[in-house]
């Protein structure tokens, strides 16, 4: 927790570094020297602002990095309930169990549907790579076959829900550039608001994203994904609970703003650091129930 407090201070300094707030910098002790802008020339001002911007970016990265570190686990298991609400309020439910081995860009996951009955047993094997898009295979028991899923367009909806395949991939901190965009409050909790832009090496359907991270526990509170300058998908994290020392949102709700539909994912029976074996994350293993 002490680590969190230190990061919290760094975060606040970073926020001040935003251009629009420079006028108030003098009031903030640690960056007081930057407030005395009258004594330096234009070049100095520009350099100072640039330097602040770089620090803000560094700090934003540190916040996201810390948030990621705090969710570092060796493995994870949960039962998920996916509820899709379309613009007319119609609901479709899907349930699955998810097991993940490893974390953040270097992990393997098996997702197995349990409801509705007609997709029961359908399994998805996801192998995440730090340097490229994940490999995915699907096992369909009705035809007794596994097949590699073509994912050139990760914008594709995941089984007709409002989550795209990309939304369900792990966001490794190194795949994005970050800039601190200020403070905000989500559901009464103070948050850092961070702008993230995918690096060139990381292809993304989104032009950029805005991430809200809670200051009290470094849990993600919201992500808004942009296409150019328009928000297209909003992911809200709620029911944040401490599970085995890790602050975890047990309910995630993705809204597709253009379609007016939303999908709620509720995590149940969540466990971290469960004993899972590497051989349970293979094409052979997903054939087994």
């Amino acid at each position, binding site marked *: 927790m002490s680590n969190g407090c230190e990061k919290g201070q760094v975060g606040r300094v970073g926020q001040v570094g935003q251009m629009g707030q420079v006028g108030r910098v003098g009031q903030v002790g640690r960056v007081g020297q930057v407030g005395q802008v009258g004594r330096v020339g234009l070049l100095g001002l520009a350099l100072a602002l640039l330097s602040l911007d770089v620090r803000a970016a560094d700090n934003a990265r540190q916040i996201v990095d810390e948030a990621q570190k705090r969710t570092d686990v060796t493995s994870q298991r949960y039962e998920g309930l996916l509820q899709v609400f379309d613009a007319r309020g119609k609901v479709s439910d899907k349930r699955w169990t998810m097991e993940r081995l490893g974390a953040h860009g270097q992990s393997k996951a098996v997702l197995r549907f349990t409801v509705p009955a007609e997709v*029961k047993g359908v399994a998805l094997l996801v192998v995440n790579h730090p340097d490229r898009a994940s490999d995915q295979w699907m096992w369909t028991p009705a035809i007794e076959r596994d097949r590699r899923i073509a994912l050139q367009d990760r914008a594709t909806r995941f089984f007709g829900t409002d989550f795209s395949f990309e939304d369900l991939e792990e966001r490794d901190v190194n795949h994005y550039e970050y800039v601190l965009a200020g403070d905000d409050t989500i559901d009464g909790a103070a948050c850092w608001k961070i702008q993230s832009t995918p690096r060139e090496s990381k292809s993304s359907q989104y032009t950029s994203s805005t991430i809200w991270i809670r200051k009290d526990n470094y849990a993600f509170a919201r992500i808004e994904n942009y296409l150019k300058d328009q928000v297209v998908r909003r992911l809200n994290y709620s029911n944040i609970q401490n599970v085995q020392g890790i602050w975890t949102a047990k309910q995630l709700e993705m809204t597709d703003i253009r379609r007016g539909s939303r999908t709620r994912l509720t995590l149940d029976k969540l466990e971290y650091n469960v004993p899972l074996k590497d051989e349970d994350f293979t094409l052979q293993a997903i054939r087994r129930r």
Partner: protein
Amino acid sequence: MRRRFNKAFFVCFVLFVSSRYAVVTTQAQTVTQRGFVEGRALLFPREAPNDPTRVVGDLLAREELVVKPAPWVQFATGFDLRANSHDQVEDSWRLDVDDRGVKRPRASLRRLTATVTHGPFTIDAGKQFIRWGKADIINPTDRFAPRDFLTVVDTEVLGVTGVRGVVQHRAETLEVVWVPRFTPSRLPLLDQRWTVISGAAAALPLVDAGSDLPERSQAGLRWGHVGSGFEYSLSFYNGFNNLPNVGLVGQVGQVGQVGQVGQVGQVGQVGQVGQVGQVGQFSVLALTRSYPAIRTYGADAAIPTPWFTIKGEAAYFTSRQSGKAAAADEYLLYVVQIERQTGEWMIVAGYSGDVTTKRRSTLAFAPDRGMARSIVARASYTIDPVRSVAFETAIHQNGRGAFGKIEYSQTSGQHWRATVTGVGIAGHSDDFIGQYHHNSHVRVAVRYSF
């Protein structure tokens, strides 16, 4: 046979009882169940020359149960119950185990498999499904997967009885299969519209003179590698083709009484039951099936690129005489396809080809080769979580046969799904696809899953 049935029934009973017990006494994850009941109606706008029936009703109930008493062992079983308005189902309540009948069994054991896992080793023993290959259009390497071809354009894979051992180490997988008992593909019924006899022979009654099923076992070996951004497999199969050589024999009088007078079948378009020559002297045509010994040398690969995924699969078939089955053609069957998922669209397009290296005078029912030399495409679109549409087409490169399908599917609640499918078939009688031009149809299916 009765003894085998009793054994299978006993094992199933034990599995069922143990599963009920397991539900009560152990964790819920140790037992899983899935099943459905599906009613289908096929509506044919045209009568076929040998089959005036235009409406066919079909009912299928399927139940599958998996019991996992320990992490290292699993038992899976599945049963089918069927009914059909057009005599496509046997009129007998025996529990069929080996899927060797001409008609679909009324009650059948779909699978009964024990799976043992230890580290990287997995062994599946019993009646099971073994699928090879990566392509979606046709699978030349998929040699342990006989099919039910009663409706040629809508097939289902049949299980085989054998042992499959797999060892997986990092990116490498080695699979060894041994199938001691042969399971043939189920052919279209002789008196129904999916059996097409052209020419003068069409006027003669066609009778089933039986099958000559191989007694020897089949074996296969497959090595697969999943690399960084690509995967491939090499395979070898030594056994029998589950698609038969067909013998058409002209007979005078009743089958079995007068004996064979002469062979009238001519080698026709592969995949057809053939053009038949001089038949005036005969009163019936008798059809026999024999299954040629084959070896296949196969390979398949999937290569994702930034734009699409390329999938390819090929197998070279050699053949030799075995029992009553003459050696069949030797040929290379291959398919190349590209696949892309874009937005809510999933698109697959490709070409399947066939290169014959040694042609022999055998007549065969071979839908895999019959579909070759075609451009094939498939697209599906997810409208929303409950509705989807799909399109599929196969067009022979010579333009003599084409097939198209459009399907709309919608779910309701957690259990119901309705699917409406329109199938159009056009072409010439000497083409494998085109010969079914009387068989365009609409299919309506309602399924309740549980």
